[in-house]
């Protein structure tokens, strides 16, 4: 793929860019901070919502701060809506207040001394609107997020969900080319989260600009985003549409996130030799280095060796905990896997740490895909 012809001088899009359409955000974020290095190619098209997922310390916040201009790049480039905002190689730097962005911070950071209305009017005022017009625009936005009646309240008199919506209205009221959301639902309780997530989804669908959602919650990402970018230790480990990433995890972190067992191995037709020395018969045919994924619910536990199952191995229980309606059993053996058993099955098996059982997985329940592929969508 080639670079966007509308943005001369911009580096070619990174390999694996999902679409040749003109990107509103075209960035390669490189930030060196001592031993940590963020190296993240990122393009987002107008109207697209990209979720940046990763464990703590992966560099999600660093990426967000670099995009917002609260941190400068040490390499790479950042251009937004055709404007170069940060390009250390060419000594280009745009301060935060001149960037066409809106940010919803994790704990919202609503100004405590201003009413909800004046919080939302703050951005339009800075864009040169007079007080009355800015307040009018703010009132419109508060109506859109369903908070017209709370306009005169101070932030401390708003509930968590209301504060989140005011923060969203405040960020959108400046009509940003790029909307940045930093764990926008993390501060909410489970019930409010559900409602707020649904509303957020609606507002993001209406937002004509690009949206980057920083989160470590897979559900937020799956519900809100069109595309996932997963980073670990400052580097992209996987990116693509939601279905591909959740079906074919490429790292242990992603596998844990989507709740799958993931093993690396060497395939020879329908047989895969896993790293632990275990042979698995699989449904898919492959050759060479592969990844094998299967759900914990696909792992069956037996107290004696099951007859007729080619994929069974002795496993020792290392832990048992509740998982939804089932029990999740952590197993050690030639391979480490998690297995879900129903309460009924658990009553018969009596899984307790230290006990040795037989684990089995059906060939048809496994998914095999090449390990060497470039992480693409």
């Amino acid at each position, binding site marked *: 793929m080639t670079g966007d012809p509308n943005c001369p001088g911009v580096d070619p899009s990174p390999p694996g860019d999902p679409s040749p359409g003109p990107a509103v955000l075209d960035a390669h974020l490189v930030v060196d901070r001592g031993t940590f290095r963020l190296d993240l190619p990122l393009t987002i098209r107008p109207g697209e919502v990209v979720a940046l997922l990763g464990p703590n310390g992966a560099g999600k916040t660093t990426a967000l701060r670099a995009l*917002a*201009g*609260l941190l400068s790049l040490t390499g790479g480039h950042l251009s937004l809506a055709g404007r170069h905002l940060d390009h250390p190689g060419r000594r280009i730097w745009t*301060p*935060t*207040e*001149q*960037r066409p*962005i*809106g*940010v919803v*911070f994790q704990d919202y*950071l609503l*100004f*405590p*001394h201003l009413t909800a209305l004046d919080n939302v009017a*703050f*951005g339009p005022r*800075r*864009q040169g609107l007079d007080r009355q017009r800015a307040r009018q625009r703010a009132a419109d936005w508060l109506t859109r997020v369903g908070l017209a009646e709370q306009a005169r309240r101070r932030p401390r008199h708003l509930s968590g969900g209301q504060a989140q919506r005011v923060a969203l209205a*405040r*960020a959108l009221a*400046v009509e940003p080319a790029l909307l940045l959301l930093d764990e926008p639902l993390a501060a909410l309780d489970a019930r409010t989260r559900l409602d707020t997530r649904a509303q957020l989804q609606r507002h993001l669908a209406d937002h004509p600009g690009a949206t980057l959602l920083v989160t470590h919650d897979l559900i937020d990402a799956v519900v809100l985003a069109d595309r996932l970018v997963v980073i670990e230790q400052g580097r992209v480990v996987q990116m693509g549409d939601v279905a591909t990433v959740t079906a074919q995890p490429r790292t242990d972190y992603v596998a844990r996130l989507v709740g799958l067992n993931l093993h690396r191995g060497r395939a020879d037709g329908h047989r895969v030799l896993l790293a632990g020395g275990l042979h698995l018969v699989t449904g898919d045919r492959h050759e060479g280095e592969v990844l094998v994924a299967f759900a914990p619910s696909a792992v069956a536990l037996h107290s004696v060796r099951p007859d007729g199952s080619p994929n069974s191995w002795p496993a020792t229980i290392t832990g048992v905990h509740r998982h939804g309606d089932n029990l999740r059993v952590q197993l050690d053996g030639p391979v480490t896997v998690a297995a879900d058993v129903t309460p009924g099955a658990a009553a018969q098996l009596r899984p307790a740490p230290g006990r040795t059982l037989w684990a089995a997985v059906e060939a048809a329940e496994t998914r095999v895909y090449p390990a060497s592929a470039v992480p693409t969508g």
Partner: protein
Amino acid sequence: MSRPDLVTVTPARSAPPPQSRRTGRIPVALLLPAALGLVFLVLPLAGLLIRTPWSTLPQRLTEPGVLTALRLSVQAATLATLLCLVLGVPLAWLLARIDFPGRRLVRALVTVPLVLPPVVGGVALLLVFGRRGILGGWLDSAFGFTLPFTTAGVVLAEAFVAMPFLVIAVEGALRGADVRYEEAAATLGAGRWTTFTHVTLPLVAPGIAAGAVLCWARALGEFGATITFAGNFPGRTQTMPLAVYLALETDLEAAIVLSLVLLTVSVAILASLRDRWLGSS
């Protein structure tokens, strides 16, 4: 078996809560000096009240000298506080937010007037702003403007001594304030000045108010630097502390009355502001 249960439960319920039980165990080694310290602080004030000539008080209070000195004191302390606010808040912001070389040295310099004997401060002010001083000579010859031994001199001397109180209080408030609000303002398009006036100042307003109260109280009681730099001219530079000191040599009762007025004004101001800004216990 229910009756024995009741018997054991009831005394536990009626037993005093642990907090009040603990008061009986305050060590004497702490209680005694604490009580002595309190007496030491309160006794002189009580002495003032005991020796106050209550019968002649109304007539003494209306003596022209008292009101003149009081008015001058309040005016000078207020002007000095305003001067400290105008210069001290930006200085505190600089110290709290900008990482410039020599910041630690600047912070140390700011606190020097705090530990300097005020008389020495007065002498130093004379050397700079006096008629033959480094700046004072130029001010005098260029504008015919003299500071020493004027009311403006009183304000200057008081501001010199009181400003560190304000700067330290405001810098502490700025350091305690969450800078992420300023980042949020920047993402909404606010430059540094707008962020300062629209976000930072409102956020640290309680800290500024507390600093201003401390500053005002210090300025009101200023003696050493004022008498050295501004002299002791009734109606022009004679503030309440100076009047008290002077009266002490001639008329003890007058000194007591003046002290009582000063005490009343300071306590009234502090008490009225304490609940709003200084935080009550």
